[in-house]
């Protein structure tokens, strides 16, 4: 298993290099430059040219890229053009907020999605099934910017139960976690339902019932265990995706996380910050996939990575 994890981590290196090269090329091809953007309305052409020279932004592209890679290999992702701080500092500062948001959204999606999927599968075509699948459909269909504003309007403005935005305590995370996790809960519920329904058609489930086992052990010990693998895959990928930042949720609820950092970097053509954000996000996705693969081995003893 250790060997497997090590090989997967090694294979991440060319992926990260490829991603950084694509970002570099794209940012050099699209119009707009970070220095001009710093000035916004107060354009001083001579000052802009002077700053471009002083920041070595007029060096050939390949020199700038290799300079970035060399520094990155030494753990230095540079200074953000827009936020004037080391990229590493900005990402490490923003990440805990995204981590809390992502984990709370993920936990919400699991504790709601999996039981909803199980109940829907066990009571197929019942009112409970229609309710939970409707709930799942809403979660998957409603855009976060809409559901977020709706929640703020009802629970903050009208009822006054929760604050509108910010992240100064546990109560500030309740709405964003639900809004963000709802979509993931919907996906997990639907996948759990369909996977469980498929497994429950199998002979060994009929045999378990015929042996006299009560329904709960049949579902949890036999059926769920064999149907959970695809759900675990989705859960791991969703967590990795959430960890790389949920820009709309962070914007609507005023949470200064990785998503806002990354989108701000794109808008301001902030090459160091964008490279750092994308490489960080890619790394998290790779880790998420590795965790999913490792989880398979624990869930299904037939899967081995030797």
């Amino acid at each position: 298993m250790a060997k497997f994890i090590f090989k997967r981590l090694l294979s991440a290196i060319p992926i990260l290099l490829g991603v950084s090269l694509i970002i570099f090329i794209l940012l050099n091809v699209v119009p707009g430059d970070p220095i001009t953007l710093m000035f916004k309305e107060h354009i001083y052409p001579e000052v802009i040219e002077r700053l471009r020279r002083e920041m070595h932004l007029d060096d050939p592209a390949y020199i700038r890229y290799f300079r970035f890679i060399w520094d990155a290999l030494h753990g230095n992702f540079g200074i953000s053009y827009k936020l004037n701080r080391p990229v590493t500092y900005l990402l490490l500062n923003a990440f805990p907020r995204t981590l809390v948001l992502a984990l709370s959204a993920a936990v919400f999606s699991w504790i709601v999605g999996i039981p909803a999927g199980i109940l829907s599968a066990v009571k197929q075509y019942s009112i409970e099934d229609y309710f939970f699948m409707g709930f799942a459909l809403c979660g998957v269909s409603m855009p976060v910017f809409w559901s977020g504003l709706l929640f703020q309007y009802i629970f903050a403005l009208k009822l006054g139960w929760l604050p509108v935005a910010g992240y100064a305590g546990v109560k500030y995370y309740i709405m964003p976690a639900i809004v963000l996790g709802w979509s993931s809960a919907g996906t997990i519920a639907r996948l759990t339902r369909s996977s469980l329904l498929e497994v429950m058609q199998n002979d060994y489930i009929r045999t378990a019932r015929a042996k006299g086992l009560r329904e709960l052990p049949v579902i949890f010990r036999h059926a769920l265990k064999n149907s959970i693998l695809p759900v675990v895959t989705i859960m791991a990928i969703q967590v990795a995706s959430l960890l790389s930042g949920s820009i709309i949720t962070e914007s609507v609820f005023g949470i200064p996380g990785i998503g806002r950092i990354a989108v701000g970097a794109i808008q301001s053509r902030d090459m160091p910050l964008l490279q750092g954000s994308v490489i960080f996000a890619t790394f998290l996705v790779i880790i998420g996939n590795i965790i999913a693969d490792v989880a398979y081995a624990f869930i299904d003893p037939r899967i081995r990575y030797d």
Partner: protein
Amino acid sequence: MNKRRFKFFSVMVLCLMLILIAFCPIQAANKERVFTYILDTEDQETADPQMTTWAYTIPMNIFDGLVRADTIAPGQSDLVPALAESWEISDDGLVYTFHLRKGVKFHNGEELEADDVLFTINRMMDPKTKALNTDFYDMIKGAKECLNGEADSVEGVKVLDDYTVQITLEEAFSPFLALLAAPPCAIFNRKATTEAGSNFGLIPKKTIGTGPFKLTSWTVNEEMTVEAFDDYYRGRAKVDKMVGKIIPDIATARMLFENAEVDVFDCDFARSQIPYFLESEKWSKQVVSGPRVGVFYYCINESIKPWDDVRVRKAFQCAVDRKIILDKIYHGQGILANGIMPKGLVGYNPDLEEIQYDPEKAKELLTEAGYPNGFDSEIAIISGTTSTRDELVQPMLANVGIRVKIKSLDSAAYYGTRREGKLPMYTNVWSADFNDPDNFFYTFFSKKNTAARSFNYNNPEVQDEILRARRIVDPKERIALYQELEKKIVYEDAAWLPLFSLDHLFVVQPKVKNFKVAWNGWSSMPFYGIEIIDK
């Protein structure tokens, strides 16, 4: 079994207590007077006003300049002494001698001295600083040499004694005193700023000024907090703390205000909400309004055919019904502008002839110019911003035959293309940085800047006069020249279409007193006089 149940209930009670604690508001030991506002939709980058061209709210509250522009009436300002208690200007307009106030303290306890003024100007012009606002001091003798690395310091700044500093200009520059009131000309403490190095403006406790507040905390993309400075030379501020939140979403900003989580709502964020606040029984009495010393305008890019033909540009001026736009989109909260200098600016001419809406005349002009069937063109906007102005103008232009497509660009592409002089027509607003006509004429129509704003205005005679106007010492002669240039640029050359000057509306919570709109109508403003009175 009993032990297990006891453990289970203990855990449940503990969880319940933790939840209750999380929901309980934190009670402050002493009731602090805190003013909470929306600082911006994006992080401020830096609190160092030499290193930013737009993020001025915090610097305006933690620093002071030698002089200050005070609001004496809505849209009117006067230059008053700030860190300098008096000054003399030589008859030829070259030498400015400032006498500093004694006993002014920086946030670190150091006293303001003339050497700090020398240091501040040298720092701006030091190429190692990579300052963005060098244009604010580059008229000082020796400033350009310092910026080019040919000198170690700015020759024209001399410390005569501990509280007297003399600034000599390369040539007479009449806007100089007004310009010193602008945020980039804030004065820094030599000791603290040198020690802070590149952290000045980024780390709160290293960002030292003389202002009524000191920067105490900053969470990137979240909020910046300032606290009252007890030893401020004008007296301690009446609020203890100000918290500026970064809220990217406009609807969230509005809900934060209505939920009393912020104390002021800037209606520039969401102009569509203005009728709601004006008609609301709860909020109409809480609206604070002030004129903006600024002009909304349409840029016409003369390097793109057929806009190089003055008849086509004049046709554009006649084709737009500005009154309809002012009434429909901005609810009549403003006045039509007909020139370059807005109301409230020194030199404003209230007797300018109104630019008439006359679509028939527009069609005649286009026919005369060789476009009887009109032509195609573009208006550029920044994606994500509302383009209601352009959406109203589009059919007006179509009515006379000018078929415009609204082209959406992201902000970096927009500004980059504009700087290259290639942005097609666009609309924007310019509010005064300092109270002088030069801030408008030089910014848009000088040879140095006109291409970088995609106007590409090409009248060398006018452009020479704009430069000459800077050197005229007699105020009456200067103003007369600007008023003459205004008519030439707008009426004869039709170089832009001025739209209107809008009022700037804010809505404040009932507990907020003495909230005044800044003299120039900016969103960035000093909050020194604000009081919080909890009932």
